[in-house]
C-alpha cells in the first residue's frame, strides 16, 4: 500500500515541482531541468498589462461569485434541507449532480446562445462571467451547507427554538445562520478556489477586457517557458491559498459529509 501511495504522490507532484523549478530557471529547452536561477519571469508577469488586468478581473469575479453565492445559496440550502417533499429532494439531487453531469463546455455554449441573442446582448460583460461561475460553484456550496445542516440536526434545534418562543425569522437569525458560520466559510472558500481556477466557461463567455487570469494564462503557454511557468505558479498559489484557508476553516467532520474542505 505504502508503495502505491508514494508512487501516486510522486506522479502527482512531479509536474508541480517542475513548474516551480521552471519559473525560477534561466533557460530551458529540451532538457529535464532548466539551467540558471532568476526571478526575472515573475517580474515580467507582474509588469505585463494584460496579466495585471486579468489578475484583478479574477479577484473581482471571485468576490462577486462568493457574495452572490452566499446570498442565494444559504436560503436555497435551507429550502432543500427542510423540504419534506420528494420533488424538492429530486431537484436538489439534480443541482448537486450538475457540475459532474454537465461539462462546463456545454454550459458555456448554452450561455453563449442565451447572451448573444438580441434580447440579452450581455456576452463579454463581467456579470455573465459571474453568473457562469455561480452556476458552476453553487452545487459545491449547497452540498456543503446541506450536509452540515443534517450533521448539526438543525431541524431539531429549530423545533427546540420554536418551543422556546422563536418565530421563523428569529430562528433563522439566532440558530440557523450562526450554526452555519463555519460551513458557510469553508464552502465559500472552496467556491473562491474553483472560481479562480475556472477556465472553460470563462474562455468562451469573457470579453477581451474581462478575460480572467486562467484565460490570459493559456496564451502565455505559447511564449517563453519560464514566463509561462511563473504565470502558472501565480495561479496555483492563488488557488492554493484559497483552498488552504478553506481546509483550515472546515469542520472536523467534513470527511464524513462531503467535499466541504
Amino acid at each position: 500500500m505504502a508503495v502505491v501511495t508514494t508512487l501516486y504522490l510522486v506522479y502527482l507532484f512531479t509536474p508541480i515541482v517542475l513548474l516551480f523549478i521552471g519559473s525560477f530557471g534561466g533557460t530551458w529547452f529540451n532538457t529535464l531541468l532548466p539551467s540558471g536561477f532568476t526571478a526575472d519571469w515573475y517580474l515580467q508577469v507582474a509588469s505585463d498589462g494584460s496579466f495585471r488586468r486579468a489578475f484583478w478581473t479574477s479577484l473581482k469575479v471571485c468576490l462577486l461569485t462568493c457574495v452572490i453565492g452566499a446570498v442565494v445559496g444559504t436560503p436555497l440550502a435551507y429550502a432543500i434541507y427542510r423540504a419534506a417533499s420528494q420533488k424538492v429532494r429530486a431537484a436538489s439531487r439534480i443541482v448537486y449532480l450538475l457540475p459532474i453531469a454537465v461539462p462546463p463546455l456545454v454550459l458555456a455554449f448554452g450561455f453563449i446562445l442565451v447572451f448573444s441573442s438580441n434580447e440579452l446582448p450581455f456576452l463579454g460583460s463581467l456579470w455573465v462571467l459571474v453568473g457562469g461561475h455561480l452556476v458552476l460553484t453553487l452545487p459545491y456550496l449547497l452540498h456543503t451547507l446541506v450536509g452540515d445542516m443534517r450533521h448539526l440536526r438543525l431541524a431539531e434545534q429549530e423545533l427546540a427554538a420554536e418551543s422556546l418562543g422563536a418565530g421563523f425569522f428569529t430562528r433563522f437569525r439566532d440558530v440557523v445562520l450562526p450554526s452555519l458560520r463555519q460551513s458557510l466559510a469553508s464552502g465559500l472558500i472552496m467556491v473562491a478556489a474553483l472560481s479562480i481556477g475556472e477556465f472553460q466557461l470563462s474562455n468562451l463567455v469573457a470579453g477581451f477586457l474581462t478575460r480572467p487570469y486562467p484565460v490570459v494564462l493559456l496564451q502565455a503557454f505559447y511564449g517563453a517557458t519560464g514566463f509561462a511557468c511563473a504565470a502558472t505558479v501565480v495561479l496555483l498559489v492563488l488557488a492554493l491559498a484559497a483552498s488552504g484557508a478553506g481546509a483550515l476553516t472546515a469542520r472536523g467532520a467534513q470527511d464524513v459529509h462531503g467535499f466541504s474542505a
Partner: protein
Amino acid sequence: MTTRAEYAIALEGVSFSYPGTDVGVHEVDLGIRRGELLAVIGSSGCGKSTLMKIIAGFLTPSKGRVIIGGRDAADIPPRSRNVGLVFQTYALFPHMAAWENVAYPLKLRGQHRNTRRATALKMLERVGLITQAEKLPSQLSGGQQQRVALARALVFEPQALLLDEPLSALDAALRVEMRDEIQRLQRDHGIATVHITHDQEEALSMADRVAVMQNGRIVQVGEPREIYARPANRDVAGFVGHANLWSGRITGPRMVETKLGSLTTEPHGRAAGETVAVLVRPEQVRIGVAPENMNSFAGVVTRDRFLGSFRRFDFRCAEVTLLGETSEAGEIVAIHIPPNSVQILPDRTNAT
C-alpha cells in the same frame, strides 16, 4: 373526576393520522394535572411521540381539542404555547455557551442581557452546572448536556414540560441518576410534566401517573402501583413489569384452568368456560409447598439471575417455565402461588 380547570393540559378526543397511513393517535382523552408528572409509555410506534408533537403544536390534530391552561390551543402556534421541551438528543444550540442556551428563551422574551444571565446562572446552579456555564455543548458530557436542556426548558417558567425519551441516549448508571435529577427539578418547580418513554421501569419509578399506549390509543391511565397491580388487559400486564401470563379457562367460581394446572383463585365472578388471561407476578411466587398443596408445584430451577438484593429464577414444572423472585438463597424444589396472587384479566386487548 378532576374538572377541566385543574388540568394543566387536557386532550379531548384527539385524533391524528400521518398522511396516507393509519399510524397516529386515535380518540385520545388525557389530562395532565397541575404539578404532576405523567409518564406515557408504550413500545415504539405506539403513537406516544406523535402525542407529544400534538401537545407542543408541531402537529395539528384532525379531530378533538388540546386545552393548555384552560384555553383551547388550536390557534396557538408552537412558539406561543409556553411549553418546555426536552429532546432525546438535547437539541442544544452548538454555538452558544451553556448559559446562553439557558438564557435564550429569556432573550426572546426581551429580558436585558444582565438579567437573563443572572437568571440562567441561577438555573444552572440548580442543575449543578454553575462551573460549566461558559462551556459550549460539545465540551459537556451527555448527562451535562441533558441538564442544560432541562434548565433551558424550565427557565422561562412554562406552563408544562414535555420530555421525549430524555434518558435513552445515556448509559445505564447515568440513566438511573438522571431519573432522580429530573424528578427533583419537576417537583421543585411544581410543573405539569409529560414524560414519554419506552422504558416501563423508568415510568413506574418516576411518574405520579402512567398512561399506557397501544396502537395509538390510551389503554390505561393510573398510578404506577395501580397499573402494576391491576393491569387493564393482558398486553399491559406483559408490558409493565415482569409477569407470568397464561391463557386460562374458568372452571369454577374460584378455579381457573391453565397449562400449569388448575389454580385456586379468590372469587372472580366470571362464568365457567370463559377464556381469560391469568397473571402471576414473579415476586408473588412463594417458595416451598403450601398447606394442602394448594397451587403448589414441584420442579427445578433452570436459570438463576442474581440481581443484588434478590434473584429472579426460571422454575420449570411440567411443560411450563415460571418466573419467580426471591431474596432467599438456597435450592428451590417446589413453589406455590397464594390464591390472592392469581389475577384474572380479560383475554387480549378487548378493553376492561
